[in-house]
């Protein structure tokens, strides 16, 4: 039986993890590769690095991180943040990333999804969507790090993204993000019903039952979370044991 994936997300700025784990016995807890290795050993099913580096010149640092991670950590990992072209994708995939996640660039230039899928395979192309609730059962797409609404319905956009060749949909609820009060389950289940590609839930995880709800009621295929792991409130193993006890299929290492 296919298990549900638990995916820690690491924000990387200028080559350093921001909001990293504080309580782990690592040589350098700001080092993305060390943290990736740590999460792999803890049982993470995949990893996402979100590059929030602002300056263009420093972006090459990310390539080195990708290369090093690929040489040490043998689980799939995705790079997101600032990917604007096929060239950007190629560079990251060649360095060893398994997938790239595109957000604003895909909205501005949907052809990028098709072109990326054609060149590298749709399994490499994750379309990330920032969704903000707008009335009942309606969500609007935002871009530029959630600063700019684009007047597009989220449900319509993810259907289009799937048609264009997206391999997975990473769906962040901007309303839930940072609240630690749980994922937007209505958004997730609507999305899961609309597309035949996996939906990765993001935004709002604070308690283990939030992850359970996203995976059961929300019908998500995977859950992404940051602070719940980084702040060491729960380890990945603890969460997986909890989920297994709630009859959610997860990969637990023995």
């Amino acid at each position, binding site marked *: *039986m*296919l298990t549900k994936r638990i995916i820690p997300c690491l924000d990387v700025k200028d080559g350093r993890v921001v909001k990293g784990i504080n309580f782990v016995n690592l040589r350098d807890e700001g080092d993305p590769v060390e943290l990736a290795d740590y999460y792999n050993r803890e049982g993470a099913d995949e990893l996402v690095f979100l590059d929030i580096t602002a300056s263009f010149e420093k972006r090459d640092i990310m390539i080195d991180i990708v290369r090093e991670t690929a*040489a040490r950590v*043998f689980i799939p990992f995705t790079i997101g943040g600032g990917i604007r072209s096929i060239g950007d994708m190629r560079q990251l995939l*060649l360095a060893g990333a398994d997938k790239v996640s595109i957000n604003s660039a895909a909205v501005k230039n949907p052809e990028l999804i098709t072109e990326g899928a054609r060149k590298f*395979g749709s*399994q490499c192309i994750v379309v990330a969507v920032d969704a903000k609730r707008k009335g009942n059962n309606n969500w609007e797409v935002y871009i530029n790090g959630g600063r700019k609404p684009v007047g597009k319905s989220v449900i319509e956009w993810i259907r289009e993204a799937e048609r264009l060749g997206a391999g997975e949909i990473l769906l962040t609820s901007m309303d839930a993000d940072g609240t630690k009060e749980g994922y937007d389950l209505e958004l997730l289940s609507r999305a899961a019903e609309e597309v*035949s590609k996996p939906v990765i839930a993001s935004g709002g995880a604070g308690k283990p039952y939030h992850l359970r709800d996203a995976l059961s009621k929300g019908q998500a295929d995977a859950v992404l979370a940051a602070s719940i792991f980084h702040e060491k409130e729960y380890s990945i193993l603890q969460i997986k044991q909890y989920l297994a006890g709630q009859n959610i299929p997860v*990969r637990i290492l023995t």
Partner: protein
Amino acid sequence: MITVIDYGIGNLKSVVKAFEHLGVPVRLSSKPDDLFRSEGIVLPGVGAFGEGMNYLRKNNLDQVIIDFIHKGKPFLGICLGFQLLFSSSEEDKEISGLDLIKGEVKKFDTQIVKKVPHIGWNRVELVQDDPLFRDIVEPRFFYFVHSYFAQPEEEEVIIGKTTYGSYNFASVVRKDNIWGIQCHPEKSSDTGLAFLKNFSEVVNKWK
């Protein structure tokens, strides 16, 4: 020395990196001489069936692979490299596969399973013992990413099976010195590394 066939598509480096991490001598090459002189060959790859086969044929690598296998040396196909071992695929009906293992590669039907591709961690249930699974105990979780699955004609080649929805497909096969695995051992953490290590040990004992 193990050679990972470089055939231009997919993320081939991860297989090489996994062997390097294990301290196994490995190279990435598409030169017939390199392939022929290897003790073991891995055919990895993600991408389309037709594109993969066309590339192999255009570069004469199909014949090199067949000759290598006829010499009786260990060969491992991963993901697309596994599917290419079969006779044909629904993905590109007019292009024949390597036909080293009889059978067809079929597409998951979205009427039967809701999500295609099959992405994520799933178990390999062994139906036969095999040296590549030595010391790999249950639950044998591997990372999968695929929209097509193989249906071997002969049941005896099946080493492991995986359940996805109501599908129960052959995820690992072996015929003499040819192994194939649908999932990605190079992305399956310690379990996958153990599998690749076992392959390198089979290669070592073979020579």
